[in-house]
């Protein structure tokens, strides 16, 4: 069983055992527009909850990507660096950003479930 949770910075996180897969939400891609550049953390790097862990840029502007939990980067998705448009096409699935071996499962508790996030996203864009 894996549950997907969401952050206020519009990241999604899916925990399977000790490893969390993190990406940005469809709502985030809609706000950003066409993504043309992606920067990911390095494999082996340690990232802290709510710290920056990457950058996405649209034709208009650059935005930081934050990590919703702390951990060690165990994998990155090179395909979205090579072709950032994949993020617009399939943000919540094949266009994941990085995988973390997480430090503290309880950090997941403060994140939103799908229903709460959808409500949050709707409110924050109106």
């Amino acid at each position, binding site marked *: 069983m894996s549950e997907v949770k969401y952050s206020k910075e519009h990241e999604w996180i899916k925990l399977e055992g000790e490893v969390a897969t993190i990406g940005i939400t469809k709502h985030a891609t809609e706000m950003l*527009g*066409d993504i*043309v550049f992606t920067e990911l953390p390095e494999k082996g790097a340690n990232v802290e909850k709510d710290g920056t862990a990457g950058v996405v840029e*649209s*034709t*208009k*502007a*650059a935005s930081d990507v934050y990590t919703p939990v702390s951990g060690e980067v165990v994998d990155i998705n090179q395909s979205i660096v090579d072709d*950032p448009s994949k993020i617009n096409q399939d943000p919540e699935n094949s266009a994941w950003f990085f995988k973390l071996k997480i430090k503290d499962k309880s950090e997941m508790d403060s994140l939103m479930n799908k229903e709460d996030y959808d409500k949050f996203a709707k409110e924050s864009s109106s």
Partner: protein
Amino acid sequence: METKKTSLYKLHQDCNAKFVEFAGYQMPIQYTDGIVEEHKFTRMHSGIFDVSHMGQLFIDGGNDLTEDLEKIFPLDLKNLKINHSKYSFLMNDEAGIYDDLIVTKLDKGYLIILNAACKENDFKILKKLLNGKFEMRLDEKRSLIAIQGPKSVNILNDIIQGVEDLNFMSGNWFMFQDQKVYITRSGYTGEDGFEVSITNELSEKLTKQLIDKGAKLIGLGARDTLRLEAGLCLYGHELDKNKTPVEANLKWAISKDRVSKGNFIGSDIITKQLNDGVSKIRVGIKPEGRIIAREKTKIFNQSDLHIGEITSGTFGPSVNGPVAMGYVENEFSKKDTKIFLEVRGKKYPASICGLPFYKKSYVKGVNK
């Protein structure tokens, strides 16, 4: 101050535009297709741009007006034919640029297209310089619709016959329905295209007919990526009060004949800079890889000395890579000079390159 809306505002809404405030106007930044698709559609097909926020300044007058305007603009207006246009600048005494603009000679006067953010100030400056001798109006009753891209000539000519006979940077009066429209073959994308000055009542009707024939509305977002690929300057970025046309690498727009005689605002500085060179100059910049260097990005040379700044930078959808323009110290402005761009604290390699990034396709040889 309340934001203004153009005559096409409702149509933009109906086409699901995302709006942004620009120069006091609610303008469409993009529609549902998004900037990259809108950009590519313009290059391949035909894009419609609402540029009604720009100033359309009509000044009535004859030879005496031409003489007075030559004291302001570095243009050979006496030899400019009626219905022909020139790119130029409104400058201060130090040759700093108040605005860049297009001057078109009309039958009994001139039409000058001004940047939206500058138009009110330009009007004041010009009114003062012309001493109130001529009838001047910043026409708010007319909209300005640009149609750009390779299919534009056929689409517009189907609706308004005869536009296909215009050459780049020339124009004429045509009829649409029962009203006069002034159309020039010009634009801001590097593509063949037209700008149509039309009454506010008829602008939506014309735009809908263009859409029916296959053209699409394109937002300001793609307008910016298109002009940047074409190496064209944007006021407030490449150009401002502290930069001269020579520094902006736009000396081609200054009449040589006028420079030799002087006697226009800023002519002393222009002459000096043309003779002695300038210390900083606008260049094209091609970052290596995919890194995007945006406005205000610092530029360094290979010895890590700060040599300039980016003025515009984005991802160019048609060149499929990052593109930028900026100012560097003159000695580092040669093509292929290696430079470094500081983005988010890290330095990335780039090189000085020629402009445009994307080849222009202006139509210059039809008829006459």
